[in-house]
């Protein structure tokens, strides 16, 4: 018998602090697998966000910088520009990337910054206890939209891939989901592709991952995945929004 599924090397041994059933952990594994796949451990620098993944540096066996809330793309830019041979990625939540850090992500994208962004869209501020995010769905209850997100007062969610897709800078933009094994597999491929795009110097790559926050949604982990599938996917269509023609096909 052969091991067909094992813990990637780029993950450390530490137990993660995420809540039971939180998909942050799955995404961590997929990123680590991509790093292992391309053998990048010695040249990768990760940038952790402020959000539930603030301790990501404890779980990855990689050099890391911990950025201020929303500023990971700027930090990654600084790193990548002075170490152009390295591989630099950010890992950011929806509050981090689409709210406070919106200018930074749009400008990194339009500059065609050669970094990879893993964007966790869980429709909420997880770490601070469940406030409304820019991606919170219409009608969704959160601790700062206690009567449900009222679009007539606070407007509509932002679709990040679609927004960035209006720019000339990005080379790869995709949206994937964590709601079942098939989609997780798909997500893994997209993440590998995103790193490959960076490795080949094609430009900016971003993978938006529809994720769950069972704790703040007040659901079991399984209910939460159902909610991703039934509510989030229709609002945030999955797919590849931008891909460089010339990128050699990903064998992942």
């Amino acid at each position, binding site marked *: 018998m052969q091991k067909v599924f094992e813990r990637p090397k780029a993950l450390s041994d530490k137990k993660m602090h995420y*809540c039971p059933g*939180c998909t942050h952990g799955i995404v961590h594994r997929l990123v680590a697998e991509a790093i292992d796949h391309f053998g990048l451990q010695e040249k990768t620098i990760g940038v952790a966000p402020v959000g539930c993944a603030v301790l990501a540096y404890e779980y990855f066996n990689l050099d890391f910088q911990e950025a201020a809330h929303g500023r990971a793309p700027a930090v990654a830019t600084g790193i990548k520009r002075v170490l152009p041979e390295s591989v630099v990625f950010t890992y950011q939540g929806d509050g981090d990337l689409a709210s406070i850090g919106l200018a930074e992500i749009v400008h990194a994208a339009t500059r065609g910054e050669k970094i990879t962004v893993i964007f966790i869209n869980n429709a909420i501020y997880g*770490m601070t206890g469940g406030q409304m995010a820019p991606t919170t769905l219409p009608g969704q209850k959160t601790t700062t939209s206690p009567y449900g997100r009222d679009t007539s007062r606070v407007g509509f969610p932002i679709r990040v891939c679609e927004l960035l897709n209006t720019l000339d800078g990005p080379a790869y933009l995709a949206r994937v989901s964590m709601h079942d094994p098939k989609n997780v597999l798909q997500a893994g491929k997209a993440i590998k592709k995103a790193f490959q795009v960076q490795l080949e110097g094609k430009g900016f790559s971003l993978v938006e991952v529809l994720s769950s926050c069972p*704790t703040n949604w007040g659901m079991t982990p399984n209910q939460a995945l159902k909610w991703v599938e039934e509510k989030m996917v229709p609002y945030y269509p999955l797919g590849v929004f931008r891909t460089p023609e010339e990128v050699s096909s990903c064998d992942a």
Partner: protein
Amino acid sequence: MTHEIICAGFGGQGVMLIGQLIAYAGMVEGKNVSWVPSYGPEMRGGTANCSVVVSDEPVGSPVISEPNGVIAMNQPSLERFLPVVKPGGVLVYNSSLITMKETRDDLHIIAVPANELATELGNSKVSNLVALGAFLQKTNVVTADGIEKALEKVLPPHRHKLIPLNLEALRKGMALV
């Protein structure tokens, strides 16, 4: 008299609630009171505690480093707070989950099989009230009546139906001492 009490346990064991109940009851009974929570870094789970002061004088420091009363609901909490209780103080611990490794002979230490007793009442979630009952019986910080009034204030209306069960658990704990 000033009671400085720490209630500690896993998140989810209801230690914040019993701390608030003591404080609220103290207020109802005309005392000066304060309540301060302290959370660990975990999102969910992990250990949490709160400091409660009930006093005849205005409350000075709401943060307690040398309590004269402790309710410890899990092992890490016991280990952290046992050494700092003031001599002569009261320590109630949940013997359902805690094994006492070291002890102190200058304290009143009370073992309460809170989970078992709560399960006997049909709901393991009220283990906190069982422990509280034992603590109050020993210390008289506030009365059971005070706790009853506090429950009405502290629990949100849709959970008021649980008040009788909570009071039952409280009395079960009191009966222990």
